[in-house]
């Protein structure tokens, strides 16, 4: 730096280069964003396309008029409403179950190290294991118990998918709460359970809510267990969607409409809870 004097021309040149770089940067950001959002755009636009517009060549990138007929048919003829209701029942119930059991276990593991490394390892292995490997033994058990094709079978089996996640992530949130708060409450004469309810839980609420939202989305999106454990009586949204390809011509408009409904909760979570997304997706390994 010392001794060099920048002339006006030098400064102007540097400004030009900087401007060029930032233009390039934003152009690249825009292009990659366009690529990554295109599949979502295509399904969203497809939901509003009129009959025949899907099988049009060249493809229609922006429909002339927006039609809502696809939504109507998807929700009635194709059983979308039933799927929506079932998905909602299953996701809400499972989220409640997982959150209640999960909070207690997570607090116990996070604060008191119950089960030590062995339990941690057990929960983490469950979290990492592909759900498909549990499908057959669970199927045989549920079949024996005559539970196939009921809501209960999904409430229960989704606990297996979501509870390790909830416990692991919430354990991290509980570990973040300073221990001093509990000690102070204990010295004041509160019982351990009162301390937990009145002092720890309120501080953990943001973490619990975020975890519960993730669990809701995972249940909402789940396909494999629903495919195996249910038939006709209890069809969730992904199952209804997958079943729509059965006919001789695939009803892409209706599939797009129902898909758009199916992905809306996930998109809302992404847009409003971005701050917590990295923590949830990395199972708490990155605090974000």
């Amino acid at each position, binding site marked *: 730096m010392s001794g060099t004097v920048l002339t006006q021309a030098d400064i102007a040149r540097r400004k030009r280069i900087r401007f060029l770089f930032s233009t390039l940067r934003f152009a690249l950001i825009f292009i990659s964003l366009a690529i990554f959002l295109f599949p979502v755009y295509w*399904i969203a636009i497809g939901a509003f396309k009129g009959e025949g517009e899907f099988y049009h060549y060249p493809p229609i990138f922006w429909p002339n008029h927006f039609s809502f007929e696809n939504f109507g048919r998807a929700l009635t003829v194709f059983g979308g409403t039933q799927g929506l209701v079932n998905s909602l029942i299953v996701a809400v119930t499972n989220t409640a179950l997982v959150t209640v059991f999960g909070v207690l276990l997570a607090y116990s593991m996070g604060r008191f190290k119950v089960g030590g490394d062995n339990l941690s390892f057990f929960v983490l292995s469950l979290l990492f294991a592909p759900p498909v490997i549990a499908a057959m033994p669970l199927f045989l058990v549920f079949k024996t118990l005559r539970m196939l094709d009921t809501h209960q079978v999904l409430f229960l089996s989704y606990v297996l998918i979501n509870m390790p996640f909830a416990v692991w992530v919430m354990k991290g949130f509980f570990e973040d709460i300073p221990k001093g708060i509990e000690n102070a409450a204990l010295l004041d004469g509160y019982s351990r359970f009162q301390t937990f309810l009145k002092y720890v839980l309120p501080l953990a609420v943001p973490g619990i809510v975020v975890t519960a939202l993730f669990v809701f989305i995972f249940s909402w999106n789940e396909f494999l267990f629903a495919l195996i454990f249910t038939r006709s009586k209890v069809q969730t949204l992904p199952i209804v969607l997958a079943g729509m390809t059965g006919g001789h011509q695939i009803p892409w408009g209706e599939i797009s409409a129902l898909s758009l409904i199916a992905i809306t909760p996930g998109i809302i979570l992404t847009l409003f809870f971005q701050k917590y*997304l990295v923590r949830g997706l990395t199972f708490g390994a990155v*605090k974000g």
Partner: protein
Amino acid sequence: MARMIRPATIQESEKRFARLLALPGMIVLILLVAGPLAYMLFNSFLSKTLAAPIPPHFAWFRNYADLFSDGRFWNAFFHSMIIMAVGIPVQSVLGLIIALLLNKKFPGSKIVIALFLIPVMITPVVAGFEWKIILDNRFGPLNYLLGLLNIQPIAWLAKPVSAMISILFMDTWQWTPFVTIVLLAGLAAIPKQIYEASSVDGSSASETLWRMTMPLLRPMFMLVVLLRIIFIFKIFDPVQILTAGGPGMATETLSVLTYTIGFKNFNVGMSAAIAVIQLVIITIIAKIFIAKVMNRTEGRAK
């Protein structure tokens, strides 16, 4: 409120309280896991099928031996490995580039990052449909755009190699944003002084990237690779929708094969054996994960 309590009793009561809290969750998990797990292990030694009324009989390691000598198992194993070997590096590089583009804040950068993340949380079944539509050889927008470049329409999902490429497209689309968000968190954790120091040194931008940023990001890359390996072992829904393992068995992954053996062929013994094998692999990965990732973060928390 001053009470005299011996430390030992405090510890005792604390332990009892903690165990009581853990009990309901543990019971649920053990009921859902231990029983089926033991059942699965037992089944893996049986010759047992639901497809024909043949009573199950003990077959020792027959299922495992059959599996290891079966080309279809290695075929599926190979496909899962291809997705890892090609997908993870491609997604890491793309994810890094996008992370570097987004690292410096600008007005609206938070919204842009959120928009980038939409593919990660999308219903996997819908992801399968999205790509099925995009890759459609007659009406799909991709072939149309390629046609503008004078490239003949490609029947993406009809040929083995291009079907595999389609799976990789879909996987890369869905998981590159995941890499980006992890690396962005890593970049945000790098102290500003490090960049200031290197700019005082007169290092060029690329020198700073390779000498400073990349080594500091290494733990994040480690995390991404481990998690992606785990996710790829799990991948089922979008593949089932996009190709269902086809054409033929050209895109059959381990999860899809496990499903097919169990619920298309109804071979209980064999499906248990393939499940046990995957469980062993995943357990090893969980061990590595704890050693490489968890201990490090716990160390930081102290």
